[in-house]
């Protein structure tokens, strides 16, 4: 039996398909275009909708300041993480807080691949010489490329200049300090008459030295039975800086073109004589730590150091027998040598960014910009004993303290800084490309030699002047790299 062909059914289907051909195919084409459009739209939505994982950047800083500066810095970091950081998906994590020399040691350990060395941070606060050592390895991010000309113009030009290595901005100024006198006013007042001290004596280097000698002699006289037990009056945090400033005030260069100390310069020799006398006979401490430490134990009355040291002085002195006395400190401008120019050096750490992935670098730069915003920079520097680094904040800083009547120690410090900013020539220390750590060795070698010489002074058979000359030549030879 032959099967019947399904012509009727075929015709029906054919009619249906013809209808689809007429209308359905157009609809289908439009539908396809619409769907492709929706898919593309959804796909692009998927690309931007999910939040990216946060970028964690580690930071090392030296805002320690006896806890208070660290606390202020911690608050700022929290503020960044909560605001700008959250917005941009950045988490700033502090992985090391120490003194600037601690940071240098840690960087050294990394550069030398020492076992147990820390992990390289992304951001750090360093002094230019550390930056130079890092940049020799090509580790630093060139900040010029990440800041617009307008953004850079907001910084004080000389502060920016200090952060340049081979004409590339590697260190962004965060805050600057200079050196001032910290005077234990309470104890100074107790002996001022006895040592015939006048306020003006503290403004000149030579008279300051004279006061130091008189104070030592006076305190030595208090115990006639014990010879040479006088107390030191003066402490200088950085002898290297002190020599440099003194010679600049006198119009001489501390360093020659070869990067070596001009030890034959008459001004150098003059200062060396005074320093050696005070260190050997008494009046100047040779303690190789920060002056703030011995100020707090009553081992000196007057010290010269960085403005940033203010937070380390406290307001009491603890004597060896355990009793403590509350004291007031007075902050005075750096003394000027007789007939010399009002000159002082400015210093202070800057922010560096270690080269990394583009994302991490961008995150680090975002923090740098946030941290150095004029108002934030101004407030932070006021709280920590530094000078602001932006033109706007710097100008308001100088104006605000020009006629300040309050005498709180922080206000005094700011007043002194404002005075020095207006009346001193402030310059940064040039980088020593040939000998990065000359400044540290200068202090170490000189103090070490003087401590030894002082201990054996009574038994040394050499002529005193000969002894000093020999000491100097030993010091100079000890400074050879």
């Amino acid at each position, binding site marked *: 039996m032959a099967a019947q062909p399904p012509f009727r059914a075929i015709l029906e289907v054919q009619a249906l398909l013809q209808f689809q051909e007429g209308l359905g195919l157009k609809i289908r084409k439009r539908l396809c275009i619409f*769907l492709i459009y929706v898919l593309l739209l959804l796909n692009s939505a998927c690309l931007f909708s999910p939040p990216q994982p946060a970028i*964690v950047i580690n930071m090392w800083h030296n805002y320690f300041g006896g806890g208070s500066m660290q606390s202020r810095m911690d608050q700022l970091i929290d503020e960044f993480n909560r605001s700008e950081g959250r917005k941009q998906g950045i988490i700033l994590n502090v992985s090391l807080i120490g003194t600037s020399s601690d940071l240098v040691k840690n960087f050294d350990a990394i550069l030398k691949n*020492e076992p147990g060395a820390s992990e390289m941070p992304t951001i750090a606060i360093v002094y230019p010489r550390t930056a130079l050592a890092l940049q020799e390895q090509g580790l630093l991010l060139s900040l010029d490329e990440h800041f617009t000309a307008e953004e850079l113009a907001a910084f004080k030009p000389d502060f920016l200049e200090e952060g340049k290595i081979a004409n590339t901005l590697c260190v962004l100024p965060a805050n600057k300090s200079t050196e001032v006198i910290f005077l234990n006013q309470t104890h100074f007042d107790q002996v001022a008459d006895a040592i015939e001290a006048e306020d003006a004596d503290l403004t000149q280097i030579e008279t300051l030295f004279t006061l130091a000698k008189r104070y030592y002699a006076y305190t030595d006289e208090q115990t006639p039975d014990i010879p040479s037990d006088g107390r030191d009056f003066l402490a200088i945090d950085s002898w290297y800086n002190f020599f440099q400033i003194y010679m600049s005030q006198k119009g001489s260069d501390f360093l020659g073109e070869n990067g070596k100390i001009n030890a034959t310069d008459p001004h150098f020799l003059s200062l060396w004589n005074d320093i050696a006398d005070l260190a050997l006979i008494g009046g100047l401490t040779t303690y190789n730590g920060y002056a703030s430490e011995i100020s707090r134990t009553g081992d000196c009355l007057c010290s010269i150091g960085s403005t940033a040291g203010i*937070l380390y002085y406290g307001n009491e002195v*603890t004597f*060896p027998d*355990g009793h*403590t006395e509350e004291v007031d400190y007075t902050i005075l401008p750096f003394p000027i040598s007789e007939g010399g120019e009002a000159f002082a050096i400015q210093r202070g750490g800057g922010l560096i960014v270690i080269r990394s992935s583009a994302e991490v670098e961008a995150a680090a730069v975002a923090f740098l910009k946030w941290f150095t915003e004029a108002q934030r920079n101004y407030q932070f520097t006021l709280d920590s004993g530094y000078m602001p680094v932006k033109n706007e904040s710097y100008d308001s800083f100088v104006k605000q303290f020009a006629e300040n009547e309050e005498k709180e120690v922080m206000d005094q410090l700011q007043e002194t800084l404002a005075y020095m900013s207006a009346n001193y020539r402030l310059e940064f220390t040039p980088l020593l490309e040939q000998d990065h750590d000359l400044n540290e060795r200068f202090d170490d070698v000189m103090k070490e030699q003087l401590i030894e010489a002082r201990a054996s002074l009574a038994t040394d058979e050499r002529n005193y002047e000969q002894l000093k000359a020999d000491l100097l030549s030993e010091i100079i030879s000890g400074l050879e790299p």
Partner: protein
Amino acid sequence: MKKETETKGRFSIGKIKLFFREVLKQGTSIQLRLWIFLSLVALQFIAFILMVMLSVGAFDFSESRLSLALETQMTYHKQHMLKNLDYLNIKGEKLAADLSHSIENILTENETPFDKLDGDAPALEKLLSKLAPDLFQQMPEGNASGIYLMLDLSNGAGSSKNRAGLMMRNLEPNSISRSTPNIWMKYGPSSIAKALGIRILPQWRMEFGAKMHEQLQHLKKLSDQHQGLSMDFYLSPAIALDDTEDKAFYLNFPVYDGQNRIIGLCGFEINAMLFKLLYSTPNLEFPSSISLMAPGESDRLMVCQGLISSQTTYFNTEQSEDCLISSTSSDGGLLKEFRSANGEELLGLSQELVVYSHSKPLAVGRWHFAVLFPKKEFQLIESAFRLKTMMWMLFGFMLNFLLLVLLSGFYMGPIHRTLKLILQGSSSEEIERTGIIEIDDLLQFLKAKEISEEAEPTKFSSVKANAVSTHRPKMNITAEEANAFKQRISSLSPAEKAVFDLYLEGHNAQEITELLYLSINTIKTHNKRIYMKLDVHSRRELLEYVYFLEDQEQGLDK
């Protein structure tokens, strides 16, 4: 053997290969295509249901991931903390024993009773200077931020609660194996710091203050409560000594004299900085996670007495109102819910930290380790994740829909084209195979019918003729072609001509066999030769020529 195993399995590779080979050979059926189509429709439906469920928060992928991340963090940090405490416990017991022994020896040597040193600053300094080098040497690397010894004596110059002693702090406790650890003096005579060649901290004090004195009193009280006390330690809640803001845990070990009387304490400090460095895990997915160690009960963690490791600050532990976190009901979720006193909501896990072994007499207080995550931030992450998943599902949904549209077109297309050709009257031989089993069967059926029609003209040809006449195709046969056809008729042999004529008379193949007494095969052979000689390819074409010639003869041709 291997092949056999492959084919034996229910879903063996051999079977799958065979299936695809068959599909390629025979084509796919409408049934299979429909099955695939329906599967996609079902998938579409499931995707839609999932999307709806996702949008109403029926799934907790984010919570699972957070839970896993926090559990990992908890396990790692808790183990680390316990190991650290064990290490410090062992080291501290030895330190306390050594110091007790040394003090006893020095006092015996100087024939000075311990109590006589009270108020004698030079004698105390002398005693401490002898103990300092040993203490300095015992500074643990990486486990503690400081080491201390406090005697129950004072130089008498300060407050009655001041106590003489030594504390040295490592400013970089996490830098293990540093050749020169960064150690500073926090408490003690500055002359000892100079002698040891270490510097004094900005917060340096000659003597310990009231907070540490309280610790000693507490230790003595515990000792009185537990007679016959052996060496043990007491972990103090986090406190900030004196006027500093740096909070720390203190692991206090009692120091004894010869009469088994507590004359001081020694131990190790774990400060907030070290805790943060040790217990902070930069979790890239959940960066705001918080590690917390605090005393309290499982539902009440005394945050103000604990230490926190977090990238961001969520508690102000200095404020009393932010000291307490109470756990609320977990609501069956993977994570517990916590609420701080200042209203901050957190999700996380907390586990008891067994600080003291149960046999220890000073085992007082319960400690907990917790890992937490801010709820608000979690909700943000969860909604972002849900949005992302929704977007991808919607993307898949749309893609599936597009696939359905395309698939329907792909498998309807060949059916449409084939049916169109059939209706246009194309021969089944002219229509290409579609690869669709049912359509190909139809073509084969038509082909068979065409052949059958040749063999049964009355039945089939009449219908066919009707069909052809109904849908008489307009063939472009020219007069020249018709004449050439006419001439080719003369090339037929007499037998072929006889068959041809009978066809023209309307007989079918079966009738011709009867009329000419020939078999059907002979007729088929004649057919083939007739087609060949007349240069036609089908009976249909042949009929077209015939109709054309008839029309021409009847004068109907245009």
